[in-house]
């Protein structure tokens, strides 16, 4: 028990002045200087197992379908070994690996499990549940259309989200700050807001000149409600003492709104942004499924129409990556804007 601890302490003390000089006041943790073997070997091991499983399962599969999966696993193996070799000299990579290796290894193990129960043991009905190799093959084969669909989804999502947020910030600030706007706006918000944007789909399809146009409007509507609600409540709950302080400093209404109330409401506003983002994903997929003739939602239902389930899963994989990337970016923006809350927020 005491041995590894001493082992870890040695290098820390030896290099601590160095580390301190580089990273300011931050103190290096012992674990960051040395990666346990089980961490950096986890991925190569998982990949090796995946290879074995794949070899066994693909005995009864056509060759081209297994090719890209082999390539994928090979690339993964190469990268993980390269990373393990480089990490002693690259502290940034080491910290990242320490955090990510177990998760990635677990993901690869899940792929194995998936392969075992689909193409291996054939426990699931075949056309509906393709193996990971099959899905990857569909992804590679149909990459052009998938890329195009993702691009269209991105455009639609961003324009709808941006429109919704822009309108919601204006209405939210007005309702939160001005008493008359609150009196007239709040009932409207409370009645119209809770209707799910997707419930408007049939109406929107009839009324609007183009499906694209109505989809942007629906996404904007889905975003508008939570962002307006949370902006308004954030603004109207601004601590009176902050406003009092600003007034005694000679602040006018412009300063009170833009430099006090809005920054004070920012944590709330961001909750609205996240809720709005979730609602916009849902509305995007629904709008693409029923009206718009492009995008990932459309692709899924189109592939399903042709009974190409490999493509359906490929699109779902892309969708997962696409949505979580956007979500992550919003988290990054939030961390920047709300640095002043650091240590206070935990979500």
């Amino acid at each position, binding site marked *: 028990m005491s041995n590894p601890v001493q082992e870890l302490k040695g290098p820390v003390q030896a290099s601590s002045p160095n580390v301190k000089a580089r990273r300011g006041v931050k103190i290096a943790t012992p674990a960051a200087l040395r990666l346990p073997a089980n961490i950096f070997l986890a991925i190569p091991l998982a990949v090796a197992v995946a290879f074995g499983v794949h070899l066994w399962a693909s005995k009864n599969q056509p060759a081209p379908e297994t090719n890209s999966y082999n390539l994928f696993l090979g690339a993964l193996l190469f990268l993980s070994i390269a990373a393990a070799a480089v990490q002693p000299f690259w502290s940034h990579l080491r910290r990242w690996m320490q955090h990510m290796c177990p998760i990635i290894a677990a993901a690869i193990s899940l792929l194995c499990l998936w392969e075992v129960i689909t193409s291996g043991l054939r426990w699931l009905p075949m056309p509906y549940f393709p193996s990971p190799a099959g899905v990857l093959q569909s992804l590679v084969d149909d990459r052009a259309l998938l890329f195009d669909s993702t691009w269209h989804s991105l455009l639609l999502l961003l324009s709808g989200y941006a429109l919704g947020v822009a309108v919601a910030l204006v209405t939210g600030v007005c309702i939160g700050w001005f008493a008359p706007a609150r009196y007239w706006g709040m009932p409207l918000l409370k009645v119209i807001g809770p209707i799910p944007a997707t419930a408007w789909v049939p109406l929107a399809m009839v009324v609007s000149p183009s499906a694209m146009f109505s989809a942007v409007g629906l996404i904007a509507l889905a975003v508008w409600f939570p962002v307006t609600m949370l902006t308004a409540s954030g603004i109207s709950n601004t601590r009176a003492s902050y406003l*009092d*302080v600003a007034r005694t*400093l000679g602040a006018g209404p412009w300063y009170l709104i833009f430099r006090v109330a809005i920054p004070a409401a*920012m944590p709330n506003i961001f909750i609205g942004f996240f809720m709005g983002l979730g609602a916009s994903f849902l509305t995007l997929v629904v709008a693409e499924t029923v009206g718009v003739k492009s995008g990932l939602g459309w692709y899924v239902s189109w592939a399903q129409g042709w009974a190409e389930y490999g493509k359906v899963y490929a699109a779902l994989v892309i969708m997962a990556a696409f949505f979580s990337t956007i979500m992550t970016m919003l988290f990054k923006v939030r961390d920047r804007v709300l640095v002043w809350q650091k240590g206070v927020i935990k979500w």
Partner: protein
Amino acid sequence: MVTSSAQTVATEGASLRFAGVSKDFPTPDNVEARTVALDNVSLSIAAGELVSLVGPSGCGKSTLLRLTAGLDTPNSGELYIGTEMITGPSAERGLVFQDPNLFPWLTVRHNIESGLVARGKLHEKRHEVAEFMRLVGLETFANAYPHHLSGGMAQRVALARALINHPKVLLLDEPLGALDAFTRMRMQDEVLRLWQARNTTMLLVTHDIDEAIYMSDRIVIMTPRPGRIERTIPITLERPRQRNSPEFLRLRGEILEMLHFAGAEKATA
């Protein structure tokens, strides 16, 4: 360092006059009854005078300061700055609140600057920000956010934030209450230095009799429910004052006795 800026920006204090000021609030648990926070308070403060306001908790000291700042309006009576009636807040009447109330989304530097930003004077007077940061001893924390500060540091930032507007009247609601004894004495001297350099009128709420005697020209003693002025005691000790001189200690004893007497009278009534 600040004296030099005080020469370039010669701020003249302004006189204050409270004429029969009363303020009551609705009582939370009773719709009919009202809590009388201030009852017919009249007081004149000369330009450049430093007056301390002492009294037990709840006697309306903060209320009087808020009225003077223009954040609340009295139910009856008037407040004047010079000959002008106070109708709303203004940068010429700075207020340091009982809680620091720093803007948590701004760094120390930007909190101190906020008065300049609010008045659109940041370009003109940016150089003063560093001076005030040095004054309150927070140069090294310029880029820290308020939640990294101790209570005393936060209160010093609040002081600097109010001072940067060079107000004619500075209203201080226990601004040094959260400070340790040493910082507190140092800040008392700094506030006195500013007061003398600028001739600012100051109204200081404090619970500390020593602080009141050390700093003020006059001590106003208040009694609670309803908030009234019990008496005012002029302090004529030579400045700079010695905290341990016999006269100081004698005065302190007298005032403590007076306050105790005021309390006993209240209890029998």
